[in-house]
């Protein structure tokens, strides 16, 4: 039989199907399916790529220690290409076709909300390992990023003590920026200050000239900038270029989360005040070992950033939960995690808060200094108080919504 174009297609598709099927059968028996969905290309790749690298590092570590429940982990990862609509698609794919045992991922709050309900409905445990605006209350999700009460509540009083009472806020124009801006306003008021200006910027705005003129017309003592993504980085550069950097102090809740402080030159970045859970400069044995492990795997450790470490720690937290539960079952896993599990990661001790499924973690107040984050003050084991105030999954396990701060 000669191979014509038509039967070539038939033969090859039969072969492919056979391979895929046999793999699927094998996989079901011997491995734990670990789902990951991240933007590893496109505009948010600077966030997503290192998160993906961190996830693979954590999985490698778990596998080299013998896996979980006697099985090896098998990563099923999808690249959402910085396109929010792909999240819904791959969320369905992971839960309904691949039938993974857990999903880690999502970067922007918009992407988390795009897949959260799919995970909830299909009872697939979901871990969102990113700094965010707080308030998500859903029994099926675990979140280990810092929230406004852990970040802004630390950052705002310190930045105000270094400058003054009048604050101008520049925020990204989507749910993260809007909600975070409200939190900042709350903390500014609590410290006896006032928000004298508030502007939102669509994610692709890269020209801040007239905004800088407007800020000067208002004349605040401090500027706080929860700006997101590559285009918004232009603000910090144009601010320095106009010579404003030494006139009005600047603080940010996002600059550096994706290593943006390495894109700015030292002259542009020095002195900007930030507060995060992690800094590459943390001088702890676990952080050193983590950076060494990263460098051994990927060549150098420059790519590590805040949410890459969150993702790494999210995977380790889940693994602890599975070990304690002795099963992959959603209910058993949730009960195990709620029993007060904590891990020691590169950023310090991270514990699961049973009431909100958020994390109790350390926060460091830092100043940018020669493209590094110099720690000024560390606070250990801060509670996710913003979410605790509105969400209690122990008394109301059926809750499934994101609370927003009403002002």
């Amino acid at each position: 039989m000669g191979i014509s174009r038509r039967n070539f297609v038939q033969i090859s598709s039969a072969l492919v199907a056979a391979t895929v099927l046999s793999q699927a059968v094998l996989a079901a028996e011997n491995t734990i399916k670990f789902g990951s969905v991240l933007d590893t290309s496109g505009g948010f790749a600077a966030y997503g790529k290192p998160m993906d690298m961190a996830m693979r590092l954590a999985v490698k570590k778990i596998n080299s220690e013998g896996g979980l429940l006697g099985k090896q982990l098998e990563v099923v990862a999808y690249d959402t290409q910085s396109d929010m609509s792909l999240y819904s698609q791959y969320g369905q794919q992971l839960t309904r076709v691949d039938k993974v045992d857990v999903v880690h991922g999502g970067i922007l709050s918009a992407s988390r909300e795009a897949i959260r309900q799919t995970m909830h409905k299909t009872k697939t445990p979901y871990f969102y390992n990113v700094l965010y605006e707080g308030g998500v209350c859903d029994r099926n999700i675990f979140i280990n990023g810092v929230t406004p009460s852990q970040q802004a509540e630390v950052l705002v009083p310190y930045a105000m003590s270094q400058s003054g009472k009048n604050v101008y806020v520049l925020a990204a124009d989507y749910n993260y920026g809007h909600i975070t801006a409200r939190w900042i306003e709350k903390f500014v008021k609590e410290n006896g200050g006032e928000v004298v200006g508030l502007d939102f910027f669509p994610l692709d705005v890269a020209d801040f000239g007239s905004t800088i003129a407007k800020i000067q017309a208002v004349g605040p003592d401090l500027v706080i900038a929860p700006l997101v993504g590559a285009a918004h980085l232009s603000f910090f550069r144009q601010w320095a270029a106009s010579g404003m950097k030494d006139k009005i102090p600047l603080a940010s809740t996002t600059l550096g989360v994706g290593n943006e402080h390495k894109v700015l030159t030292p002259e542009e970045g020095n002195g900007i005040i930030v507060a995060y859970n992690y800094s590459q400069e943390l001088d702890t044995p676990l952080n050193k070992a983590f950076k060494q492990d990263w460098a051994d795997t990927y060549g150098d450790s420059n790519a590590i950033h805040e949410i890459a470490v969150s993702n790494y720690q999210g995977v380790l937290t889940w693994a602890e939960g599975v070990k304690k539960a002795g099963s992959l079952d959603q209910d058993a896993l949730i009960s195990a995690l709620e029993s007060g599990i904590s891990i020691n990661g590169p950023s310090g001790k991270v514990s699961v808060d049973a009431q909100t499924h958020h994390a109790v973690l350390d926060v460091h107040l830092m100043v940018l200094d020669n493209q590094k984050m110099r720690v000024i003050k560390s606070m250990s084991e801060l509670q996710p108080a913003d979410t605790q105030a509105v969400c209690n999954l122990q008394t109301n396990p059926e809750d499934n919504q994101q609370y927003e701060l009403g002002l």
Partner: protein
Amino acid sequence: MDLSFVLLIELLYAIASLILISSGLAVVFGMMKVINLAHGEFIMMGGFVTIVAENAGVNIFVAMLLVAPITVGLIGLVVERLIIRHLYGRLIDTMLATWGLSLFFVGLVTMIFGNTTTSITTPITGFSVGDYQVNGYNFFVILVAISLVTSMYIFLKTTRFGLIARGTMQDPDIATALGYSPARVYMATFFCGSALSGLAGAVLAPLVGLVPSSGATYIAKAFITVIGGGPSLIFGLVSSSAGFGLVNQFFTFYISPVYGEVALLISAVVLLRVMPQGITGKYFRGKM
């Protein structure tokens, strides 16, 4: 008084930067009718070339005004020879090919430089106007845009090559009959267009957060400006940049940046409804 002067500078800067990011596209799309979806990536590469050259010790102005345009122009030349020349007159195919190309360049630059590359600082410091601080580099950007438009005008209007180029764009068959090779004219034009994009990226590099995916920030605005401008290359470019720059800055300052962006897009829609051929389809007809 001080504030209005500062705002005037910001307005001129906004117009100048629109002219810069659109000029390369105006040449390639306006003259050759090639929809180059990799236009943003040419701008991005201009920025990266400048950073590399400056780090290698080249004077920053040489890096911006010579090294970056020539390098990106040469990349454009290779692209034209390998891909674009096979697709002249096939609008949809060119779009697909150049879109693929844009993904390729983003991937390539990410592979070489990674996602975080330290940018360069502006070579001109800020200065004060009364109580206000102004970015001194804005004047440089405005100056570059003015010289760019003037030299493009002089080149197309007074030189022999300018005449041949315009003739070929108008009617390639007649140009062939007169003994000129359209293929070579297209090649040279594409080189110039790419070089202009490289220049834009280079000049803006000290002001923007440059990452491999930065091209996406420019592409939409460049297309809106060029299409809004209409058939005349230079008059179209200047008039639509001025119009959109004014609308965008006005709303950004007096209301908010969100309305600045919205107003720009709405004015583009209204403009194309009233003048489907763009501004120069109705006014300045027959000018360059």
